[in-house]
C-alpha cells in the first residue's frame, strides 16, 4: 500500500447539537477529525464519540446502507452517513445536522414517528380476498417477471427519511403523507399479488396526498437506494386519474399456482412458540 493512502487530513466537523435538558434551541459545535481515505462519516462520528465528546448522539445500525438508521443532513443534503465517504464531499470541513421536517429528540436524532405513521396509514401489506389462503398457503402466487419489474424498484425503500426531508411540501404541510408513503402505496397497488387498490386509492386520492406532489424531484435526487419515489407518485396519479375516468380495467389479484399433483408437499412449518408474553 502506498503511503498516500494512509495519509490523514484534518477535517472539521460542524455538528448541530441539541440537548433537550439544557438547551432551548440547537447550536453548532466543532470537532476536528483525522480522516484517512476510505473513512465514512459514520467512522468520523465514532471517532469523535470515542476520543473527543462521548455525549454526541446519533442513530446507526448496519453501517452498510441497508437499514436506513443513519440518515442525516450532510452539508445541506440528506443522505446516509455510513454510505458517504468524507473525502468524497470535502477536503476541509463539512456540516452535520439532523433531518429537517422532523422534530429533534437530541443532537442528530430526529423523531421519526410521523414517518412511520404515514407509512402505516397507506396500509403497506398485501391484501387479498382469499383469507384462507393467506393463513394456510397451499401454493405460490403466480407473478411473472414483467409484473415483478413494475414495482421492484420501489420495494428497495429502506424508510430512511431522506426523501421526506428533501420534499418541499413536507416542509410546510403537517398532514402530507410524504414521498416515502406515497411511493410505497404505489408499490403495493402495482404488486399483482395485491387486491387492496380500492382501499388505498381512497387514502392517496384525498387531500394532502398524491396531488400535493408537484414534481420538485428532490426525493429522487437524494434517495440513497435509487428508489425514485417521484416516478412512483406520478405513475400513481396516472392510475388514479384513469381509474376516476373509468378508462382502465383493474386486474384482479393474481391467482395462486397450485403444486403439481404428483408431488408430495412437505408438512407446513408449525407456528413457533411466542417469545413475548401474550396478554
Amino acid at each position, binding site marked *: 500500500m502506498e503511503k498516500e493512502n494512509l495519509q490523514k487530513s484534518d477535517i472539521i466537523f460542524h455538528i448541530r447539537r*441539541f440537548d*433537550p*435538558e439544557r438547551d432551548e*434551541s*440547537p447550536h453548532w459545535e466543532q470537532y476536528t477529525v483525522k480522516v484517512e481515505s476510505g473513512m465514512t462519516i459514520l467512522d468520523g462520528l465514532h471517532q469523535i464519540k470515542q476520543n473527543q465528546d462521548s455525549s454526541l448522539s446519533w442513530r446507526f445500525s448496519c453501517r452498510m446502507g441497508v437499514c436506513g438508521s443513519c440518515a442525516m443532513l450532510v452539508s*445541506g*443534503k440528506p443522505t446516509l452517513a455510513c454510505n458517504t465517504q468524507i473525502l468524497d464531499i470535502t477536503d476541509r470541513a463539512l456540516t452535520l445536522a*439532523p*433531518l*429537517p*421536517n*422532523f*422534530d*429533534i*429528540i*437530541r443532537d442528530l436524532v*430526529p*423523531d421519526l*414517528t410521523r414517518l412511520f405513521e404515514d407509512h402505516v396509514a397507506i396500509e403497506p401489506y398485501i391484501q387479498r380476498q382469499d383469507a384462507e389462503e393467506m393463513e394456510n398457503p397451499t401454493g405460490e402466487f403466480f407473478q411473472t417477471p414483467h409484473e415483478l*419489474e*413494475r*414495482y*421492484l*424498484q*420501489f420495494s*428497495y425503500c429502506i424508510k430512511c427519511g431522506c426523501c421526506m426531508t*428533501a420534499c*418541499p411540501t*413536507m*416542509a*410546510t404541510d403537517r398532514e402530507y403523507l410524504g414521498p416515502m408513503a406515497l411511493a410505497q402505496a404505489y408499490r403495493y397497488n*402495482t404488486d399483482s399479488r395485491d387486491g387492496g387498490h380500492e382501499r388505498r386509492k381512497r387514502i392517496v386520492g384525498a387531500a394532502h396526498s398524491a396531488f400535493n406532489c*408537484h*414534481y*420538485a*424531484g*428532490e426525493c*429522487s*435526487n437524494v*434517495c440513497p*437506494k*435509487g*428508489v*425514485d419515489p*417521484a*416516478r*412512483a407518485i*406520478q*405513475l400513481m*396519479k*396516472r*392510475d388514479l*386519474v384513469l381509474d376516476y375516468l373509468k378508462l382502465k380495467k383493474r386486474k384482479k389479484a393474481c391467482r395462486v399456482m397450485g403444486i403439481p399433483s404428483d408431488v408430495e408437499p412437505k408438512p407446513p412449518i408449525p407456528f413457533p412458540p411466542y417469545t413475548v408474553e401474550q396478554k
Partner: protein
Amino acid sequence: MSNNEKMYDNRLGIIGWLGGGRWGIERYLYIIHRLAGVGVLIFFVLHIFEGNLRIFGPEIWNPVMRLMEHPVFKVGELLIIIGFAFHAINGIRLILIELGWAVGKAEEPVYPYKSSLNTQRPLMVIMLLLTILLILAGGFDLMFLGH
C-alpha cells in the same frame, strides 16, 4: 408519544420551499411555476374587470385603452407575458410528467442511480428553450409592434 423530554420543532417552513441553493433545477422550476401562477391569477382577476369595461361603450373604453399605453402598464404586461409563457410551457411539461408519460417505467436501480429526473431532462430542456423563445417573441411584439 412516549418521550417525556421536550423536542425541538425542526420544520423548515416556507424557506423549505426555496431551498438552500443546493437543490436540482426541477425544484426551482416548481417554485417559479407557483410564483408565476399566483402572479397571473392576480392579473387575471383584474383583467376580468378591465375587459368588462367595454359594456360602457367607447366613451369609457377608448380613454382606458389610452391609459394602458402608459409605460408602467407596459412593464406589467411584459411581466405577465414572461410569467404566463413560463407557466404555460412548464405546465405542459408537468402534465406530461404527472400523467406518467415522461417519467419512464420502473427499472432496477443500478449504481450510479438514474431516476425519472434523468428521463425527463430532454423534455425540460426543450420546454425551457420554448419558454425563452415565447418570451422573446412576446417581448419583441410588445416593445416594437405596439402591443
